[in-house]
């Protein structure tokens, strides 16, 4: 089976500064893949190259078996949807209008938008529980709500691939979890998702696969269990993180918190032992 998204030996420079140096990875169909890495490692540039916003100098990107260099803007939009980081447009489009914009690649008429397209947009609003705010101006919503709306727009676009640029950055804890659950659900339906995130716990808890970037290259890729390890995290963030297992669940903690906790734990065990003796 050919992978849904295949990036091979991608190189990109801004003027003389190399941003991507030989990036290669693959994502299978229906996989939820997390892209993880420190600030400035080239995640956003990688996104933009894959989406054809930036012209890369060397390498290939294939989506659904097609080389993106051969795809026009219209046909790209039928293959891949993009959820940008939240932003405010200058005009007060209603939330439902913003979601309807996701149907653009499939709208055929000039003025008329078909009932089917409106239904798809309305279903996407329903799916994310946004029906209550559907008639409010999008640019007056909170940052978190705007991110959810952009997510709904991508769902309405009905593409086999979805790219999300830090989809949970502006959300509260419960909405972060909700968005990851929605992504898992969408992936279950067969949509391939690439989402970049700054939270190692999120990628380790929710993703099927994790790609870790450092210094304009891929550091490691694979299942979260093999990738989000103390060794890998140490290579990105020197001496900041510790990885602990709580039963089956894996937790990334700040190292000092983990060590303090370990010490307390040891002490407790120690006291218990002396009591036992």
């Amino acid at each position, binding site marked *: 089976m050919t992978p849904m998204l295949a990036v091979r030996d991608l190189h990109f420079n801004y003027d003389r500064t190399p941003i991507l140096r030989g990036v290669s990875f693959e994502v299978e169909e229906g996989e939820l893949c997390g892209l993880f890495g420190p600030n400035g490692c080239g995640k956003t540039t990688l996104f933009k190259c894959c989406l054809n916003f930036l012209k890369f100098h060397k390498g290939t990107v294939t989506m659904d078996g097609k080389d993106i260099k051969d795809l026009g803007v219209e046909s790209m939009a039928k293959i891949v949807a993009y959820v*940008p980081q939240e932003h405010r447009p200058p005009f007060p489009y209603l939330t439902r209008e913003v979601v309807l914009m996701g149907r653009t690649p499939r709208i055929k008429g000039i*003025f008329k938008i078909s009932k089917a397209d409106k239904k798809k947009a309305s279903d996407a609003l329903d799916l994310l529980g946004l029906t209550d705010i559907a008639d409010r101006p999008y640019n007056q919503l909170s940052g978190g709500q705007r991110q959810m709306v952009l997510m709904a727009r991508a769902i309405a676009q009905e593409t086999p691939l979805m790219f999300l640029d830090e989809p949970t950055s502006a959300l509260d804890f419960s909405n972060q979890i909700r968005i990851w659950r929605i992504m898992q659900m969408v992936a279950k339906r067969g949509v391939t998702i690439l989402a970049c995130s700054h939270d190692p716990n999120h990628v380790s808890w929710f993703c099927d696969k994790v790609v870790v970037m450092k210094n304009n290259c891929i550091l490691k890729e694979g299942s979260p269990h093999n990738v989000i390890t103390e060794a890998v995290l140490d290579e990105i963030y020197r001496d900041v993180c510790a990885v602990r297992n709580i039963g089956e669940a894996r937790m990334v903690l700040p190292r000092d918190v983990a060590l303090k906790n370990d010490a307390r734990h040891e002490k407790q065990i120690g006291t218990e032992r002396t009591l036992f003796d």
Partner: protein
Amino acid sequence: MIMAKYKKISGELSMAELTGKTDLWERLGFDQEFGYSEIHKMLILLALLALLIVSVGVAITFGAYNISVLEVYGIVMAHVSPFGDLSAVTRLHNTIVWELRIPRVLLAVLVGTALATAGSVFQGCFRNPLVEPFILGVSSGAAFGAALGIVFVDFFLSIQFSAFLFGSLAVAMAYFLAHVRNETPIVTLILAGVVIGSIFEAMVSILKYTASDAALREIVFWLMGGFYYATWNDVYLLVPIIIPSFLIMWALGWKLNILSMGDDEARALGVNPEKYKLLLIVLATLVTSLAVSTVGIIAWVGLMMPHATRMILGPDHRYVIPAAAMLGGSYLLVCDTLARTLTSAEIPVGIITSILGAPYLFYLLRTRGSAILG
């Protein structure tokens, strides 16, 4: 028994009526389902069209020379209807109504339409509600062209042609100045427009400084803008360019919505920003340039009408463009009618558009500002 039968029939009738009606609405695409109702927006568009037609109908009856309403319409009918008899009307009245008033009224509507459409398009493309159609230096370029035509009468075919030429040239220069690495960043483009505009303004000043008194007066007069010299020829020249350009821009209304979300998002949604922005800017510049070169610089219409429209209809450009066009046409027509009838001498129309427009926009901002600026 009879009553029951009657009820049944009437019931069936109303059902058929009802389904017939919804069918029609649905076929037009204005179904109310899923919360995307567009019926009331359509009704507002029709109301604005009615407003425009009524304004035209009323404006042709006003004028410095007193001609009765009936006679005015008699003259119009004599020209328009196939059975019209021109021999029945006074020649003087015929000239005043048919050769002076009507072309002037039509020209005001056309220019208002052009400026308001261009304003909506520029604001959408540049993602900035404070942009007006002159932002890329059309007006300064056109002013320079007109001033050249006035000062060096022999070199140029006409003031209008030279104004159009330099107006378009200014925008083209701004666009090429801002176009780097196959991209045209908005901030760079606006900055380039300001730079080009100030260069042309400086050159206008040079021409004003060196011009003779008569030429200077004419330049100042041109810069204020007005419809004094409106003729049928102007109407014939503007209609075949402004109407198709308007229709194309209207047809791109939904794409303009997408473009106003930003370049990357437009691309992700399947709308090529470079291609469509260039097309829209070329069309908007074409109509602005043509309007400016025909009647001079008229402020406010292009900035204000899109805002007024957004407050009535919301920001969807599929509706903003036609509504702004009709509102702009009506507004400029009202202003010009006031300009030629308020006092015995003519008032330059730009003065009226500003005096009427500025407080109105201020009022809108204070009461419903959130609707345009969010």
